[in-house]
Every structure is written in C-alpha cells, then in structure tokens.
C-alpha cells in the first residue's frame, strides 16, 4: 500500500469520527510513509514518534490511531505526532502547542 491509498482509506472514516489530517500535507505524507515503514518493520502501524518494543501486545496502546489521540486532540487539538488534528487546529483557531508525551512511563520499552 502506498501513502495515497492509505490516505484515501483513512480520511473519510477518521473525519467521521472528528479527526482530521494535519493541513500540512508534506508532514501528513511523511507520517503516512512512516506508518507504512513501521507496518513493514513490525507488522503493525506503530506511532512514528514513539519507540516500539517490537512486541505487539506491549505496543497496542501506540498503534495508530493511538490510545492517547482522543485526550491529546481534546487538550491540544493535535495528536502526539500531529498526524490527526481538530478542525479548529487546522483553522488556526487554537495555538499549535507542543504535545507532551502522555504515555505512562511504565509502558515505555526498556529493552
């Protein structure tokens, strides 16, 4: 699957749930490419901005869309890696702040 196909596959469904792709299409393409890379690497689409353990059971919470997208978009208007944002974020009605890592430390891979 290439990024265009993934974009089409995700767009309508995610928008119906209130999550919109970042208006920065270059960043979106970069992130979709990274998701495809991670799918090939690990077998599942783990968040491009988080370190995967490589064990699906341990990475379930950061498989895109991650568990933290909902609270992050609610609080910041953007998910952690800024693939998904709110309409207000895209319109610039809310400031584009840095999204803190919400994932609990104990879930981070220690290797």
């Amino acid at each position, binding site marked *: 699957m290439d990024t265009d196909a993934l974009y089409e596959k995700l767009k309508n469904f995610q928008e119906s749930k209130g999550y919109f792709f970042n208006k920065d299409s270059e960043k979106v393409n970069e992130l979709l490419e990274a998701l495809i890379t*991670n799918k090939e690497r690990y077998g599942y689409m783990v968040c*491009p901005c988080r370190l*995967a353990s490589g064990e699906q059971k341990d990475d379930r919470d950061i498989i895109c869309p991650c568990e933290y997208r909902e609270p992050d978009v609610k609080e910041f208007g953007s998910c952690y*890696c*800024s693939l998904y944002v709110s309409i207000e974020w895209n319109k610039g009605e809310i400031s584009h702040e840095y999204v803190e890592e919400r994932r609990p430390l104990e879930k981070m891979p220690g290797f």
Partner: protein
Amino acid sequence: MTEKDVKIFSLSTCSHCKSSKKLFDECSVQYDFIDVDLLDKEEKGLIMKDIKELNPRCSFPTIVIGDKVIVGYREDQIREALKI
C-alpha cells in the same frame, strides 16, 4: 564564542525529529544524532539508559545543546539555546 555540542536522540520515522534536524541543517548547526529505532536490541537498551538520565520521559526527540536538554521539537527553546 565556542560552538556548543549538539546531539539528538531521535527516531528515523518521527516527524518532530525530522523537523529538529531540518532546523539545524537550515541554520548550519553541526550535530550528531542517533536514530534509536534503527539500533539492535542491546544497543537500544544501553541508549535508553542514557536517554532516561537526560529525559525521564524517554520521549523523542531528546535534544542536548551544551548542557541544556530540550524534549520535543520546541523551536523557540532550540533557537534560544543556540542563540540563533
């Protein structure tokens, strides 16, 4: 003014990490980086210990500019640390 050492602990897939590297490139700042996701398991274990000391949240990018640690792509803090 001596140039500060700049190092990024990054992920090859992370867009914030790419933005940080891009900013350094655009400002002709010399830097080292380690794409932690590309390391083998043992190396990852060692590096994660180093990162945890710098950034207890173990998130990426973790950027070290001289003795200052910046977590995440925070352009204002990066520019201020480098006076650029």
